[in-house]
């Protein structure tokens, strides 16, 4: 960590001994690259904003056409989604999306953060070097493979356990999703925990804390910011994941009253139907509005998590 700084210091010393014109030249070069890269970073962020704007405009443009054909009231509060009868009520999908996300996080967060703690704080070095790459592998499994395994392994298992005829529903989807977001949450919180300066831990140990106390009262609160971002990134992936969810959720536009009711969330409904709609139909507008809604929902969810995180940090 300290190496580059030291290096530079010694080099700087040397250059001061050399001719001053070289040092001015280098100084100018540094100033120049400083300005250039400042513009480059600015350009990057503008490019990112452009993409952001492009997506929002692209979805929003089509989505807003919906309200020329349909009252927002019906779209947001009606539970009846039957495109064949021109009824486009998205309330069931919205509620299902929220419950699926909550259920997924309920399963995934304790497990992933626990794994991250194990990786960063408890496990001996060789075990860390083993767990991390294995977790990364999980990211590489394409979502349709998860879906296929869900369909052929998880669903029959759930059917046996629950005695249901089908097994499709929120629980199956949440289990598959939890597994999919596990590496994302785990790896990023892992990095956040490692980044907590050593002296914090040393100070706590010096006061006679046990390892559990150090983890719970010092390390996790200090890594709070990074863990929250990890959860958010995992959550957005869960909210937006489609290919695996459509295979195990049942795709029936109705409110999920039980964990095993075949139902549908915003993403799965978009994916199932968007390939079967005409471009200039109310149906298509409604699907785009659902995509837009997805953006809004995750925006709000992120906001809530951030505020909660800040409150906890303030309290700590």
């Amino acid at each position, binding site marked *: 960590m300290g190496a580059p700084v030291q290096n530079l210091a010694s080099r700087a010393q040397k250059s001061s001994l050399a001719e001053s014109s070289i040092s001015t030249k280098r100084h100018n070069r540094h100033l120049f690259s400083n300005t250039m890269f400042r513009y480059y970073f600015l350009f990057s962020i503008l490019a990112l904003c452009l993409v952001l704007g492009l997506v929002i405009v692209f979805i929003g443009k089509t989505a807003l056409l919906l309200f020329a054909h349909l009252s927002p009231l019906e779209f947001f509060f009606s539970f009846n989604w039957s*495109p064949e009868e021109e009824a486009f009520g998205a309330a069931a999908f919205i509620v299902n999306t929220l419950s699926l996300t909550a259920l997924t996080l309920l399963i995934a967060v304790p497990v992933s953060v626990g794994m991250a703690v194990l990786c960063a704080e408890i496990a001996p070095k060789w075990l860390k070097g083993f767990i991390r790459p294995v977790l990364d592998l999980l990211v590489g499994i394409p979502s349709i493979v998860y879906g296929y395994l869900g369909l052929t392994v998880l669903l029959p298992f759930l059917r046996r356990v629950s005695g249901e*005829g089908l097994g499709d529903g929120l629980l199956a989807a949440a289990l598959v999703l939890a597994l999919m977001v596990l590496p994302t949450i785990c790896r990023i919180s892992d990095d956040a925990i490692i980044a907590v300066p050593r002296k914090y831990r040393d100070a706590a140990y010096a006061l006679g804390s046990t390892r559990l106390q150090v983890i719970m009262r010092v390390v996790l609160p200090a890594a709070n910011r990074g863990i929250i971002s990890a959860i958010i990134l995992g959550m957005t992936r869960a909210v937006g994941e489609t290919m695996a969810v459509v295979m195990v959720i049942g*795709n029936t*536009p109705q409110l999920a009253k039980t964990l095993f009711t*075949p139902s549908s969330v915003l993403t799965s409904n978009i994916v*199932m139907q968007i390939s*079967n*709609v005409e*471009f200039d139909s109310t149906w298509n507008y409604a699907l785009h509005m659902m995509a837009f809604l997805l953006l809004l929902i995750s925006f709000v969810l992120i906001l809530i998590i951030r505020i909660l995180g800040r409150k906890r940090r303030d309290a700590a």
Partner: protein
Amino acid sequence: MKIFKKFTVTALTAVIAVTASFAGIAAAADSLKGKITVNGSTALLPLTLQAAKEFQKLHPKVKIAASGKGSVTGPQAVKKGIADIGACDWDASMDVPGFKAFEGQVANKVAVIPFATIVNKNVGVDNLTTEQLQGIFSGKITNWKDVGGSDANIVVVTRAFGSGTRVNYQAKALAGGDITKKEKNYKETGSSGDMKTAVATTPNAIGYIDLVYVSGGDIKAVKFNGVEATSDNVINGSYKIWAYGYYMTKGQPSGVTKEFIDYVQSKKFQQGSLKKLKFIPISAMKG
């Protein structure tokens, strides 16, 4: 933005021209060149890909890009001008339930696609009539014992509204009857493969699929009104659940597109690869 677009288009044309001229040196004998984009029905995709492969071998300067998403995407892409051929499981130049006709498009028949009602291997029933199927898919019949099977709840697996397979199955097998969603024991799948896997792994499940996919021991095709689902029964007219597959074009096809469709409709392809892919040649159907 406009200048940017102009610039990009020029750059693209330059690149294409350069690649084209390189290709030109390689194969000067064949005069046919161009690019064809095919989009639409996924059910016709294996056929399109095979035909494209053979056609590109005959005419190396022709490039064919194929993709598939859903039947209605085909004629739609043609309408928007982003595809030359729109593969569709129904005649999109006419109205079908749920979809209006696409004006000014020509439907070119390329194949006959038979469909089959499939059930999980644990289901004892091996024949279903139109009325029984209507009852099952509309949710009025919910137990296998009502149609001559054992006492078990029927699990209905269906395709999403708007799928070409569903449009045809509803029209032919259910005689226009409804497929209604149910609170339980009902699910929709996104593709033929998912349908097959879902029915194969769910006991007491019933679904429908292109006859081509019926293989393996976990699913079985049931008879429709006493007639077995086979190509021969489609050709002799006794099995009714089948439909034509179409290539939709904007007006009459011309140029490379016409050559390609001609190739697909040619006797060589229809009797050769198309039959091997287990579609039925269009010439086999009378009328």
